[in-house]
C-alpha cells in the first residue's frame, strides 16, 4: 500500500482503494474449507479446497478465490454480488442459498458442502440449467390494460404489489419445492416463482387479463399443498405461500368450484368470468 506524502495527492492512501487483494485485507490467519461439487450431467464428486479466511467473507468470495487460484475452470454463476440479481443460487449443506449473501462464519465448525441446485439438470459444477423457468414465464399472459398510462393509482391500491415485485428470480423457491424437486412435475406445475408473478398481475388495479383458467390448468396450482418450503428460502422475504399462492388458490376455487358460478357457466356455455380485484 502506498503511503501519503503530501507531494503526490493523486496517490491514493485509503485502504478502501488499496491495491492489496481482498483476501489480504482483514485476513484472520484461519482458513475456510469447502467441499465443492465438481462434475457435469454425467456425474461428479466433491473436491475439497482450502482458502484463507477473511473477515466478513461470503461463500461466493471463497468460491471465486478458489476459481482464481486453484481451479480456473470451476463453474459458478454470479453477477451483482449484493443479493439483488439472484444469479448465484446454489445449495449449501443441502439448503438453497445465495452464495453472495451467505457468510462463511455461519458454518463455524461445520463442514461446508456446496452443490448446484438439484431440482434442475446440472450443467457443470455449481451451474444448473434453469432455462425451463423462462419457458414458464413466457407462457404467462403479460400485463394488459386498455387504459392509457399515466395511471392514477394510490399507494393503498398498490402497496400489496411491492412484495411480489421484489422477486429477484433466484429460483431457489423452485429448487426447494417438492412438487418440482421430488415429484418432477415440471411441465404441469409452474412453481412458486410464477405464482408470485401471477399474484401481482392478478392484483394490479389496471390489469385486465384473466389468468385463472391458466392457473388451474397450465400452471397446476392445485398441486401445491402449502408446505411453505418456498417461503422459508426466499432471500427477499416474500411470503410466497400466504400472500401469493393461497390468495390465488382462493380465486381459482371461487371461479371454478363455486356452485352458482358452475351453473352460470353451464347455462351460458362460456369458460370463465372475470373475477374482480
Amino acid at each position, binding site marked *: 500500500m502506498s503511503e501519503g506524502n503530501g507531494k*503526490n*495527492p*493523486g*496517490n*491514493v*492512501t*485509503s*485502504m*478502501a*482503494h488499496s*491495491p492489496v*487483494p481482498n483476501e489480504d*485485507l*482483514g485476513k484472520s490467519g484461519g482458513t475456510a474449507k469447502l467441499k465443492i461439487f465438481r462434475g*457435469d450431467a454425467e456425474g461428479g464428486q466433491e473436491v475439497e479446497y482450502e482458502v484463507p479466511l*477473511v*473477515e*466478513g467473507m*461470503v461463500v461466493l*468470495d471463497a468460491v471465486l478465490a478458489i*476459481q*482464481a*487460484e486453484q481451479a*480456473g*475452470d470451476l*463453474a459458478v454463476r*454470479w*453477477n*451483482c454480488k*449484493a*443479493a*439483488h*440479481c439472484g*444469479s448465484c443460487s446454489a445449495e449449501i449443506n443441502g439448503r438453497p442459498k445465495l452464495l453472495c*449473501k451467505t457468510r462463511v462464519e455461519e458454518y463455524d465448525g461445520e463442514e461446508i458442502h456446496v452443490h448446484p441446485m438439484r431440482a434442475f439438470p446440472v*450443467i457443470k459444477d455449481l*451451474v444448473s440449467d*434453469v*432455462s425451463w423457468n*423462462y419457458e414458464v*414465464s*413466457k407462457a404467462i399472459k*403479460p*400485463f394488459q390494460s386498455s387504459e*392509457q398510462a*399515466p*395511471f*392514477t*393509482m*394510490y*399507494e393503498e391500491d*398498490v402497496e400489496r*404489489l*411491492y412484495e411480489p*415485485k421484489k*422477486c*429477484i428470480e433466484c429460483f431457489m423457491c423452485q429448487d426447494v419445492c417438492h412438487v418440482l424437486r421430488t415429484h418432477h412435475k415440471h411441465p404441469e406445475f409452474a412453481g412458486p416463482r410464477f405464482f408470485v408473478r401471477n399474484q*401481482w*398481475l392478478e392484483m394490479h388495479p389496471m*390489469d385486465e387479463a384473466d389468468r385463472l383458467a391458466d392457473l388451474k390448468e397450465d400452471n397446476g396450482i392445485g398441486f401445491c399443498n402449502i408446505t411453505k418450503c418456498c417461503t422459508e428460502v426466499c432471500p427477499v422475504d416474500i411470503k410466497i405461500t400466504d400472500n401469493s399462492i393461497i390468495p390465488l388458490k382462493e380465486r381459482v376455487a371461487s371461479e371454478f368450484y363455486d356452485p352458482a358460478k358452475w351453473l352460470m357457466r353451464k347455462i351460458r356455455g362460456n369458460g370463465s368470468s372475470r373475477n374482480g380485484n
Partner: protein
Amino acid sequence: MQREGNGHREQYETREHDVLIIGAGGAGLRAAVAATERGLSVGIVSKSLLGKAHTVMAEGGIAASVGNVDPEDSWRQHFMDTLKSGKFLNNWQMAEIFAKEAPDRVYELEQWGALFNRTPEGKISQRPFGGHTYRRLCHVGDRTGLELIRTMQEKVLATEADIYMETTVTKLLKKEDRVVGAVGYTRESGKFIHFKAKAVIMATSGWGRIFKVTSNSWEGTGDGVVLGYDAGAEIVDMEMMQFHPTGMVWPPGVRGLLVTEGVRGEGGLLRNSEGARYMENYDKEKMELSTRDVVARANYTEVQEGRGSEHGGVYLDITHLGYEGIMKKLPTMYEQFKNLADIDISREPMEVFPTVHYTMGGIKVDPETCATNVPGLYAAGEVAGGLHGANRLGGNSLSDLLVFGRRAGEGAAAFVGESVHSADIEGDAVRTEIGRVLEPLEKGGEGESPYLMQQELQVAMMEHANLMRDGDSLKEGLGKILALKDRLPNVRVGGSRLFNPGWHTAQDIRYLIQISEIILRTALERKERRGAQWRLDFDGPDEELGRINFIVTKNGQGEAGIERREIPPMPEHLSSLFEEEKAKA
C-alpha cells in the same frame, strides 16, 4: 433459420436475424421491442441469464421531468442540468432528445406493468438526486432497476425475439464496409454460432471491471466498445470514468459495492471523522446533493487529508429516517448492510468511499438513429458515448437506456428495411475467429493465468487512473498496460470448453487491456480539470479543451489514433436557455 456449417475442423451453427442485439440490459431489451414491433426477426445475445444484466443494480430511480411533485420542472431544465453536470462536453442534440423523450419512456414502462411509488394524488412519486434542480427521479424504493429490467424482460418474452442466454460474442463480421453479423459461442457448451444479421445493435454496458474497486459485475468488461472499435467505429470521451461517491468499504469482500445515491436523496448526511459536514467546503449550495464528480472528490480528499473513518472511508448517516422510514424508502440498503457488514443503518452510519461505477464515454452515435460511423452498426445505453459528457447525473442512465434503446431499435429497423444486401460473408472469417478464440485452451504448455493478469491490470488502473490523475502517473500506467498487452499471447487456461470461466476470462482480458490503453492515452491528452477528468498537474478547466471531444479510432497500423474534434455550437433555441438563466440570476 438454422443450418450447420461444415468445416474441416470445427462445426458451428448458423443463425440468421434481421437485427442482432448484443446485450440484454435495459437498452438491448428496449431495442428488441422496437425492432420486433416493425415485424423484424430479432436475436438477443446475453452473457448472463435474462434479467441479470447490470440494469438490475440501478437503485435510486429513473430521471424524467414528468413534474409530478415539482410542476415547475420541464424538459428544458432537465436538459440544462444534464449539460451542466457534463461540463458541456455532452452531445447537446442527444441531451435534447433525451430530456424530451424521457417522460414518455417512463409512462410506457407503467403501461407495460412497471410499478412506481405514488404521490398522495395517485401519480408516480419523484425523489431529489444530486445535480437535478427539481425532484425528478421516478422510483420504487431502492430497486428501480429491478422493476425496469423485469418489466422489459416480460415484455420481450411476449415477442417472437430469440434470446441466446449465456452466449458471448467475440467478433463482428463485416462485408466491405458493412457489419453483417457476429461470431459467438454458448458458454454452457462452448459451441460456436455464426450470427448473420443485416444490422447489429451494441448494448453491452460499460467497463468498470478494469478497476479493482468497482460496483460492476464480472460482465462489465467492455466487450462492445472494443468489438465496435475493431470494426472501425469511432469512440468518444473515453477518459471520462465515473467514480460513484459512495461504495461500501468494509468488510473486504464488499469493497466497491454500491450504496445508492438515494440515501443522499432521502436526506443522508456525509461526515468525516471529526463529525463535520464537510460538503460545505466543496459545494455549499447543494451540499450532499452536489454532482457525483464533486462529491466523489470531496470524499476522497477528506480521507486523503487524514479525516477518514476506521476503514478508510467517510461516514454516511441516514439514521434520522428511523427503521420504519428506511424500510419504506431504502429497504435494500438496510438488508445489504445488515447481511454483509453487520451494520444496522437505522442506528449507525455507513462507511463509504468512491467506487468505479459508470463509463460516460463509448461508441459515438448519431443522436436520432443511434447509428455509428460503420454502416449496419448501432449502439445504445452505457456502451454509447455522448449524452453524459464529463459526468453523468444519477438517474439519467435508466432513462438513457430506454430513450436510446428504442431509437436504436427503430434506427436499425429502418436500415434493414431500406437495404437489399445479404448477410452472407465470403472466405473463412468465422473459422479464423473460432481458431483465435480457442487458442488459450488448445495451445498447451506453460502460460499465464487470465485471472491473475486481470488482477494485475485492475491494480495498475486503480493506481494510475484513479479519480485524481497526473501526467507522470498516467504515463507509468500506460507502460504497465502496454507490457500486459505484450504478454496477452501467453494466456493459457485448463479444462474443457464446457462452462469454463477461465476460458471466458481469457477472452475478456483482451478487452480490458485495449480499453485501459485508450483511457490512459486520452486522459494524458485532456490536460485540464473537468468533471470526472481531474488532472492534478493542471490548474483548472481549459477553455479550448472545453470545446473538444477526443475521438479514438483504430488506425491503419492497428493502433489507437486520437483526434481532437470540435463540438458544434449549440443552436439558438438551446443556447438561449442558458442565457435566460444567467440573465435571471
